[in-house]
C-alpha cells in the first residue's frame, strides 16, 4: 500500500502576537500569535527545514523525487525543487517539479507523488510545501497569515500512513488571490469567500469521499481539514458531523493560516498524536478541494523523533515589535546597504555542493575535514584525494564569535559572526540566526540551517547559518 513513510514540519522561530499588530494599527486583535519567517527565510529555506525534519535518519540518496509546492516561490523561471534536492544531497536522476498558483498545490503535489509511486516511476518522493504570503499592512488578513512548511515522504513500503483513497474537485473562483504582479493577498468579500469557496468545496469533496467509501464521520479518529479561520472551520466540521474531539486544530491561534502548507501541517500535527489503526479524513482547499482517507499503521512509532509541529511550536521567541516584522518582510524602506556579496551564477553553480549541499572535504590520507571543500589538504597537502561529506545535519559548538554592529549596515544589528567547530576540529565560518545576541556564548551548541543570504546579481543567494538547536530531533 502506498502512503506516507515519514513526515516533517517547520515553523519559524519567531512569532508575532496579534495584539502587537492591533496595537500598531488600532482595531480588534485576533487571539493568539502568528509565525513569522525570519528576514533570511523564504519558502525555499522553510521547505528545506521541513524536508530535513522529514528525512531524519533517511539517506537523501535513496529518495528519487522531490516536489515543491508554494505560491511564493522566489523564482518565476528556475526550478526551486532542484535547489531543495541539491541541499538534501539527492542524486541527479530524480524527478523534480514545482507546483504553484494554488493553495491546494501541496495536496496536488501529494497526489502527483502518489501517482508516481503507484505507477512505478519512482519509489520514494518527498513532497514539500511552504509559503510565506504577505497581507496588506493594516488589513485583518495581516493578523491571520503565518509562515511555515511541511513535508511528507511518499513511498510504498514501511508506510506509517496508508492512503486509501483520494478525490479532487476543481472550482473556478477568485476568492483569495494574487496576480503575477501582486505582493499582497487580495480577498473578495469574506462571507462569499467562505460560503461559496471554502465551505462548499471542502464539504462537497469530504462528503463525496466518505460516501464513496461507505464511511461516516464516526468512523474517523481525526478529521484534518483545512480552515482559513477557526470559525468557518468549526462550522464546516460540524456540518460534516464531526465531534469536537475528532477535529484537528487549524493551528490558527499558534501559527496562522499558512497557505499551501496549512493542511499538510495540520496532518503532521495529527500524526504526532495518532495511533496505529486510526482512520483520518484529510482535506485541503484552493480553487477546488482535495480529500483523502488515511489509515495509520504501526510504523508510525518508527518516526516519532521528528520535530514536527509540536516541538517546533514550543521552540519560539516573540518578536519585540511590529516594526521588526515590517523590517523582516521588507515592508518598510530600509537604508541601502553596501553589501559585499556579488552573486555569480558561475560561482554558485560551480560551488553548489558546498554552498547548497554544505559539503566539506574529508582527506582520504589524513582524515582532516575542511569546510569549504579544499582540493589540497590543509593537513597533509594531499591533492584531490578527498571525499565530500555533508555537514548540514551535524551538530557543532560555537568556537568563537563577534557581535558585529557594522556588518548589517545598520539593519537588525548586530550580525552574529560565528566560527562553528564540528567534530575533528572542522571550522565553519558563518553567521548565526534565530538567536538573541545576548545569549551567545563560546562553546554553546549550534546546528546548521539554510537561509537566504542576500539578493545579488538578481539571484537569491542561499547559504548556511548556524543557530541554537531547536528542540527535539
Amino acid at each position, binding site marked *: 500500500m502506498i502512503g506516507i513513510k515519514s513526515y516533517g514540519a517547520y515553523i519559524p522561530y519567531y512569532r508575532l502576537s496579534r495584539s502587537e499588530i492591533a496595537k500598531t494599527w488600532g482595531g480588534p486583535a485576533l487571539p493568539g500569535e502568528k509565525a513569522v519567517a525570519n528576514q533570511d527565510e523564504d519558502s525555499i529555506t522553510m521547505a528545506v527545514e521541513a524536508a530535513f525534519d522529514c528525512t531524519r535518519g533517511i539517506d537523501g540518496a535513496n529518495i528519487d523525487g*522531490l516536489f*515543491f509546492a508554494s*505560491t*511564493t*516561490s*522566489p*523564482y*518565476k*523561471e*528556475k*526550478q*526551486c*525543487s*532542484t*535547489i531543495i534536492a541539491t541541499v538534501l544531497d539527492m542524486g*541527479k*536522476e*530524480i524527478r*523534480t*517539479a*514545482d*507546483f*504553484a*498558483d494554488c493553495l*491546494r*498545490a501541496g495536496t*496536488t*503535489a501529494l*497526489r502527483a507523488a*502518489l*501517482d*508516481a*509511486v*503507484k505507477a*512505478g516511476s519512482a519509489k520514494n518522493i518527498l513532497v514539500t510545501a511552504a509559503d510565506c*504570503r504577505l497581507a496588506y499592512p493594516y488589513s485583518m488578513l495581516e493578523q491571520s497569515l503565518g509562515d511555515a512548511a511541511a513535508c511528507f515522504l511518499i513511498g510504498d513500503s514501511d508506510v506509517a500512513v496508508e492512503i486509501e483513497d*483520494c*478525490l*479532487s*474537485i*476543481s*472550482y*473556478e*473562483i*477568485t*476568492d*483569495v*488571490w*494574487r*496576480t*503575477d504582479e501582486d505582493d499582497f493577498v487580495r480577498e*473578495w468579500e469574506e462571507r462569499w469567500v467562505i460560503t461559496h469557496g471554502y465551505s462548499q468545496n471542502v464539504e462537497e469533496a469530504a462528503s463525496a469521499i466518505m460516501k464513496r467509501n461507505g464511511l461516516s464521520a464516526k468512523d474517523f479518529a481525526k478529521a484534518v481539514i483545512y480552515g482559513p479561520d477557526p470559525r468557518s472551520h468549526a462550522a464546516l466540521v460540524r456540518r460534516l458531523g464531526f465531534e469536537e474531539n475528532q477535529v484537528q486544530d487549524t493551528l490558527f491561534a499558534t501559527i496562522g493560516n499558512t497557505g499551501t502548507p496549512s493542511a499538510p501541517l495540520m496532518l503532521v500535527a495529527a500524526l504526532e498524536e495518532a495511533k496505529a489503526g486510526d482512520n483520518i479524513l484529510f482535506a485541503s482547499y484552493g*480553487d*477546488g478541494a482535495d480529500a483523502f482517507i488515511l489509515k495509520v499503521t504501526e510504523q508510525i512509532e518508527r518516526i516519532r523523533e521528528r520535530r514536527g509541529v509540536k516541538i517546533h511550536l514550543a521552540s519560539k521567541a516573540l518578536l519585540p515589535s511590529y516594526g521588526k516584522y515590517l523590517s523582516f518582510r521588507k515592508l518598510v524602506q530600509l537604508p541601502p546597504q553596501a553589501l559585499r556579496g556579488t552573486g555569480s*551564477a*558561475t560561482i554558485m*553553480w560551480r560551488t553548489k555542493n558546498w554552498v*547548497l549541499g554544505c559539503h566539506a572535504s574529508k582527506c582520504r590520507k589524513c582524515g582532516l575535514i575542511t569546510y569549504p571543500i579544499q582540493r589540497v589538504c590543509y593537513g597533509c597537502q594531499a591533492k584531490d584525494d578527498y571525499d565530500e561529506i555533508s555537514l548540514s545535519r551535524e551538530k557543532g559548538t560555537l568556537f568563537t564569535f563577534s557581535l558585529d554592529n557594522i556588518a548589517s549596515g545598520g539593519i537588525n544589528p548586530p550580525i552574529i559572526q560565528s566560527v562553528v567547530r564540528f567534530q575533528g576540529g572542522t571550522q565553519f565560518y558563518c553567521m548565526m540566526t534565530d538567536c538573541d545576541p545576548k545569549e551567545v556564548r563560546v562553546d554553546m551548541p549550534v546546528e546548521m540551517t539554510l537561509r537566504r543570504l542576500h539578493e545579488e546579481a*538578481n539571484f*537569491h543567494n542561499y547559504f548556511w547559518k548556524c543557530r541554537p538547536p531547536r528542540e527535539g530531533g
Partner: protein
Amino acid sequence: MVGITSYGAYIPLHRLSREEFFRAWGGLALPGERAVANFDEDSVTMATEAAIDCMKGIDPKTVDGLFFATTTSPYREKQCSTIISVALDLGREIRTADFTGSLRAGTIAIASAMDAINAGAAKSIMITAADLRLGAPAGDFEQALGDGGAALLLGEKGVIATIEGSYSISDDFSGVWRSDADTFVRTWEDRMVLDEGYSAVLPEAISGLMKKYNLAPGDFAKVVYDAPTDIRRHPRVAGGLKFDAAQLQDSLFMTVGNTGAALAMMMLVAALEEAKPGDRILFASYGNGADAFVLQVTPEIEKVRDRRGIKNHLASKRVLANYETYVRWRGLITLEAARRPDRSPTSIAGLWRDRRIILGLWGVKCKVCGTPQYAQGAGLGGSTPLRVCVNCQAKDQFEDYRFTDKKAEIFTFTQDNLADTVDPPATITVVDFEGGGRAVFDMTDRDPAEVKVGMPVEMTFRKLYFDRGVHNYFWKTRPLRC
C-alpha cells in the same frame, strides 16, 4: 500502454520580422521572424487555444485532468488550470495542477500525467503548455523569444503515440532565469550557460534514455528536443549524439522563436504532424535538468490529422507593421491614458456566478421554441443568466447550449476609435451563430479594413483587460483561421 491520444498547438496570428528589432535598436538582427501574442493574449489564453485544438472531436467528459505548464502564469495565487478547464468545459471532479518554475515544466507535467494514468487515478489528462516570456528591449532575447502553446492529451485508449519510456535528471543550474520580481528574462554569460547547462545536461539525459532502453540513434525516425536561444547549439547537440541532421526536428526558431515551457511540446506536435505509424520518436526537453521520452507512433495517428497544430497555424499569419506595435502590445511603454470614463469595477462575485457563461461561453436553448440564446447583459450589474426566453417568454425552460465551437457570421459591426483599447480601433461585432443565437463581442486578430457584414468568424478565448487585480478572460470573435 499510456500514450498521446491527441495533440494541438497554438501560434499567435502575428509575427514580427527580426529585422524590425534591428531597425529599432541597431545591433544584430537574427534571421527570420518571431510569433507575437496579440495584446489580448497571455499564457492562459494560448494554452486554452492549444487545448481546444487538441480537443477537436473529443468529448470533454472523457477528460479527467488538466495540467497547465508555464513560467508566465498570470497569477501567483489562483489556479490557471482551473480557468482553462472551465473554458474547455471539463467537469468538476477533475485533477488540476499548475506546473511552473522551469522551462521543463511541460515535460514534467507530462511525466506526472503518465503517473496518474498508470496509477489508475485518471483515464485521460490534458497537458497544455504556453509561455509569453519577455526579453528586455534591445536585447537578444527580445528577438529570439516567441509566443505560443501546445497541448497533448494523454490516455490509454486511441493512443496515437505510445510513451515507451522516460528518463529524467535534475540539475540546479540557472543560466537563464527570472526571480519572482523580474519582468524580463535574465541570462548569465551565454557560453557558460550553454556549455554547462543545455549542451551538457540535455545530451546526458538523451544518452541516459537510450542506454536505459538499449536504443541507438539509428532507432529513431525523429529526435525532438527544444533549442536554446542560441540556435546553433541545437544541431550541435544532435551531432554530438550521432543523430543525422535529417532526424532532427526543426526548432521553430525561424518562424516562431523560443516559446519557453511550450517549445518542446510544440516541436513534438510538428513532428507528429509528419509522423508515420511505427515511427519511433525521441522527445526531450531542457530546463534545470532534462526529461527524455521514447515515443512510438501508432496507426491511430491518422485520426487526428485535422488539427490546426503547428503547420496550419504557421501558415496562417499576419506580419506586424513595426516594432512599436510590439512594444505597445506588451505594455512596455506607458501610453497616455484614454480620456474615457473609468470602467465599471469588476465584480468578482459576478464573474464567479457567471463563470460558465463567461469562461465556457455557455448560453441556453429554449425548450419551447428552440431558440439558442446567449446573454452577456448590457454591462450594468453584471450579466445575468437568461431566465425568460427572448423569443417566446417561456420562463426557465432552457437547456444548456455551448457557443465556443460554433462558427458565426457578422451581422453588423463598428470600428470604434473612441473606445479605450491597446489596438485601435476597437472592432465590435454583432454576430449570429450558425444554428441560432446572437451576441456582441470584441473582434481580435482582424484587419480593420477587411471586416464586412456577413463575414464568417469563430470564437477565441482572450483576455479582455486587467482591472483591480483581476485578469478578465472572455471570448472574442476573429476571422476564421487556418
